[in-house]
Each structure stands twice: as structure tokens, then as C-alpha cells.
């Protein structure tokens, strides 16, 4: 039997800020106008009412750059010293169900044979507190790819906003700073794992038992979310149809628009392709992993000059087939969580939902 608790925003804020005395707490917040999951510190405002951060939660586990080892080369001798990263226990607060699903997908990639020890250590050290969504954005389509926006099975603890009269309308584009302070906001809180349960027990000074009707009030909001997404896609059969469309003219057409900028891959919570590079000064240096993108020409360019994906056509095809076909074959799930970040950020409106619609034989009316 799930035990439900309620917390108001000021108390939640006090709890989280108190936690920063002994551990890192990552929260959705803006720095220099860019929304990301940032370490909570004095002066940083928690983005309670902000949209899903532009930079997805993957960066907390698979950072943009990730050191592997230090090296020193001297008179032919090579010295290698692996980076021994101390991973501290921490809380990732405010992750949405779409990003939580992305972590389950990345776990498949970075686990298994040749597991990524740094990714896994960070995952193991991180308590996930997810926010239930109650207002999808116009570019959201998580439900179409099987994500329930009101619950994140991957999270240790759920925070769900309790309805209030003055909530902004669904799909509101209102910027966070224009909204009310929201101090009257209350959240329904429950644990989904033993670890989450222990965490809640450590926060009893801040939590109150849910009152009669509060759980039902949230359940009503959640039920209302079932058909709330403006973007709805039928994914049935997409993977199998794509199997037949490797040589389709669609890829050429789409690639004519693509700038090859790679923004879609960087803001994607499931994109995980990386490069390995060396930084060297004198005889010493550092080898590190860093985010890479299948949109770039040199991603597959070999030293001898051969490139199996020489034009944007092959590279666009790789991006969409990796998400919708290859990942399904390898790991049994579509590598898209419907967060809509790529749809929103692409400067030329190259839209994964368009690809899905066209594969399904539908008309695309948005161009």
C-alpha cells in the first residue's frame, strides 16, 4: 500500500537546500538563460514552474566531457593513470517521466558487456526524484512512445503537483518568470523504491500525511492527462515499415533541409554517441570521452578517406533509423521518449514526428 505525503513548495525548497549541506542536489534551473539540471546552491532559483530543461538529465550520468585517464609520454615510455572518480551520493530532483525513461534506455547501452563504470557509478549514487507532468508542451508526444507523463517507474520518489484554481492552462507558453511565485503550491509525494522510502523517512520534518481527497484530486488530474497531448502519433508498425525503407527517397528530401548542426542529438535525452579525444600539453595529457553527433561528416570518416555515410542523406537516415529501428532490434525499445526537445530546437523544423507520420503513410501539413 503506497503511503502518500504532501509537501508545500517552501518546505520542499527548505528540505532540498538543507540537503546541500551534505550532498549534491541537482535541480532544474537556468544559468545564463539555459535551462539544465544544475547543482543547487545559494542564489540559484529552483525552476519549479519552468519547462523541462533544454539540456536533458543524461548529462548528470553521461557528461559532455568525461575524463578517462591521464598520460605522460617521455622518451618512448608511456605512463597511464586512470581517473579515479569519487562518486558521491546525490539527489537528482525534478526529472520528468520522459527523461526518467531515457535513463532506463541509456542503462541498456552503458550496462551489459563492457559496462561504462563511470556511468554506472553515477547512476548508483543518484536518488531520482521525478515530477509528474500536468501540462504538456505543444511539442510533447511522450504518450505516443509509451511514456506515462504522470508517473516515472524509474524514479525512487514521485512529486505530483496538486491541482489549484490558479494553475496556468495546459500547454501554456507562459515563461517561468511571468508566473506567480507559487508558494501555495502543494505536491503529493510517494516513494517507489526502498531507497526512496528511506529518503522520505529522513525528510519527515517537512512532510505531512496526505489529507482525504488529495490523492483522488491528483488521480483526477492524472486521468485528465491521458488525452492531453496535442501531438499524437500512431507508432504501430513504424519499426517494421522502416526496415523496408532504407532506400526511400524521403531521406534525400529531409536531408535537403538539414544543416548538420547536431542540435537534435545534443538536446536528445537518449542520444549517447560519443567521441574519444586527447588533450595534450607538452608530454602530458588527458584522454576523455565527449558527446559526438551522427550529424557530423567526420563521425564516420576513416583515416584513409573512406566514409560510409558521406552525405547528409546517410547521416539523417542513421539518426532516425538508430532511434526507431536499430535500437529496437538491439535493446527492444524505441530510443525516443517524446520529450519534443529536437522538434523545438531544430532550426529548420526537421521533425521526428514528421518522419513517423510519413512512414505511416500520413500527410505532413506543418511545412
Amino acid at each position, binding site marked *: 500500500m503506497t503511503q502518500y505525503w504532501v509537501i508545500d513548495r517552501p518546505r520542499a525548497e527548505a528540505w532540498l537546500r538543507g540537503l546541500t549541506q*551534505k550532498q549534491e542536489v541537482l535541480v532544474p534551473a537556468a544559468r545564463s538563460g539555459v535551462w539544465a539540471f544544475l547543482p543547487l546552491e545559494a542564489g540559484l532559483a529552483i525552476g519549479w514552474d519552468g519547462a523541462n530543461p533544454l539540456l536533458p538529465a543524461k548529462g548528470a550520468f553521461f557528461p559532455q566531457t568525461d575524463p578517462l585517464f591521464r598520460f605522460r*609520454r617521455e622518451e618512448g615510455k608511456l605512463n597511464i593513470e586512470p581517473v*579515479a572518480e*569519487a562518486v558521491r551520493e546525490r539527489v537528482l530532483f525534478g526529472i520528468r517521466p520522459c527523461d526518467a525513461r531515457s535513463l532506463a534506455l541509456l542503462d541498456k547501452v552503458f550496462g*551489459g558487456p563492457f559496462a561504462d563504470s563511470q556511468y554506472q557509478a553515477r547512476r548508483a549514487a543518484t536518488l531520482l526524484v521525478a515530477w509528474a507532468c500536468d501540462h504538456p508542451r505543444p511539442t510533447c508526444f511522450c504518450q505516443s512512445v509509451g511514456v506515462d507523463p504522470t508517473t516515472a517507474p524509474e524514479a525512487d520518489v514521485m512529486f505530483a503537483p496538486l491541482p489549484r484554481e490558479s494553475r496556468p492552462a495546459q500547454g501554456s507558453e507562459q515563461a517561468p518568470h511571468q508566473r506567480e511565485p507559487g508558494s501555495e503550491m502543494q505536491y503529493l509525494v510517494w516513494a517507489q523504491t526502498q531507497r526512496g522510502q528511506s529518503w522520505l523517512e529522513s525528510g519527515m520534518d517537512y512532510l505531512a500525511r496526505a489529507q482525504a481527497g488529495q490523492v483522488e484530486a491528483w488521480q483526477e488530474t492524472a486521468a485528465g492527462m491521458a488525452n492531453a497531448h496535442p501531438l499524437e502519433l500512431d507508432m504501430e508498425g513504424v519499426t517494421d515499415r522502416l526496415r523496408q525503407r532504407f532506400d526511400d527517397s524521403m531521406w534525400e528530401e529531409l536531408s535537403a533541409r538539414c544543416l548538420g548542426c547536431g542540435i537534435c542529438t545534443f538536446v536528445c535525452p537518449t542520444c549517447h554517441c560519443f567521441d*574519444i579525444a586527447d588533450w595534450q600539453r607538452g608530454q602530458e595529457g588527458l584522454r576523455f570521452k565527449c558527446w*559526438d553527433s551522427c550529424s557530423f561528416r567526420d563521425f564516420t570518416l576513416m*583515416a*584513409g578517406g573512406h566514409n*560510409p555515410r558521406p552525405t547528409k542523406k546517410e547521416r539523417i537516415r542513421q539518426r532516425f533509423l538508430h532511434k526507431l529501428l536499430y535500437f529496437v532490434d538491439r535493446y527492444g525499445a524505441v530510443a525516443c521518449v517524446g520529450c519534443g526537445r529536437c522538434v523545438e530546437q531544430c532550426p529548420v523544423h526537421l521533425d521526428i514526428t514528421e518522419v513517423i507520420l510519413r512512414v505511416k503513410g500520413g500527410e505532413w501539413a506543418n511545412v
Partner: protein
Amino acid sequence: MSEMMAGGASAAVAEPSVLVPQVATIRRVTEETPDVKTFQVVFEDPGVTEDFAYLPGQCCMLSLPGSGEAMISITSSPTRRGFLEFAVKKVGIFTSALHELEPGDQIGVRGPYGNHFPLPLMEGRKLLFVGGGIGLAPLRSLINYVIDEKDRFGPVSIIYGARSPEDLVFKEELFHTWAALPHVSLHLTVDKGDASWEGHVGFVPAYLEELAPAPEGTTVITCGPPVMIKFVLQALSKLGFPPERVITTLEMKMKCGVGKCGRCNIGGKYVCVDGPVFTAAELAQLPAEY
């Protein structure tokens, strides 16, 4: 650390990444051609050499930190223990830096990676090797393996070609060691001869068709430049070799080598972990994006 612990949150140290190589020392450098050198290396830690188990067809990531890393097939045979050999063609930044090294110098090595030549498809059968240029490197591991384990395999034929006589790799074995073995027959060709060349002149696929080996009871293993592999596969098909008995090994750009970094896939297969060895039948199921 003590300050962090005093705060109450516990800290764990992550295991070193699997992408960290072992240090190995170059023991011998053989100049095969003007742009190919074979490096014989031993791990600095003798325990690593002892535990290093591989089969022909597998690869290693060779590292020269500061100059990068590249996936190179192991050209030595696991039947010859105590060292690893890699034949490397000078084509880019990393391989050029590697070519500067001398015996005693150290590099990084991680692996072995990928699958290996499927021995059950070869045991008890005649073996036909078809190689071009540096493509003989992965085949050499298997050729020496079957030579050392000759009771398990039938007679061996090798068709091998290069751009010119001086571009033929492993000349010591081609002209002496292998040439002297009664159950090994060698057919060499060059695209363009020189004054001293008395052998065959012509491309490998054409020479293969000219020699027209019988497909019965034979398994074919081929490796070379992509365009050569393409025409060799066509020639073998014309000669009646079933694609299930034709084996090749592929090259793609790789970074991690362990199925994570996302670039060496052909369709849904990662060449680094699902390959590099594929049968022609398996290859026919994949999109021609390699």
C-alpha cells in the same frame, strides 16, 4: 575526501573505465612495405600477456595518447604465445605517429575485441584465402593458426595481390615460410609489375576467376579494400561458392570498440562487437552502408 565524508554523504570510487588501455612495449618492428610496418608488442605486465586469450579475426585498440587510437586486427596467431603482432598501414595521424616508433617504445593496447573467424565453418574443409593489400593482416592470424593446427583443417590455398611487388606484405612468409609448406599453395598477383616481377599481373578478383577454384568442400576467407571485397564476393558467387561458406572481415571507423559510441554500425549490427567477421550470407542481410 575527509571533508566530504564529514558532510555525511558517502562516496565510492568508480572502477577505471574499460576504455583505459594496458601499456605494452614494442619488441620488434618489421618494415613490410613503404607504408606498412608490423609491430610485435608485449604487455608491460606479464600477467596481462598470460591472460590475453584471443582467436584469429579479433582486433585490438592501439593507442598513442596524444595522437589517438585505432582498431587494428591482430595479425599474430594465438598458437604463438607471448606476444601480439599488428600490421599497420600509415594512413592518418595515429598510424603516422605509430610508424615513428622503434623497439623499446611503449603504446597502449586494449582488447581483444569483436568476434573471430568461425572455426566450425572451416574445420575439416579446404580453405581458400583471398586477400588484397593490408587485408592480408587479419588473414595471416588465421593462416598461421591453421598451419599450426594442420590436423584440424584441409589444404590451404592463398590468392593474394597488392598494387605492386613492393606493396606485398609479409614477404618472408609469402616467399619462404608458407611457400615451403606442401599443403599450402600460393597464388600471388600485382596490379602493376616491375622489372624483377615474373609472377602474375592483374587484379585479385580477375585472378580468382581465372584460377576458378572448385567450391566443393571449400570455405573462403577474404579481406582487402572494400572495392576488392565487393568484386571478390561477386566472383565467388559466379564460381558457385555458397554465401554461407564465404567469410569476410570489415573495417569501420571506431572509437570505443565495445558497442557504445555508436558509429561503426551497418544497419543494426555493430562491427566492433557483432563483427568484424561476417559471412557473405550475413552481409547480404545488411544495408550496403560500409
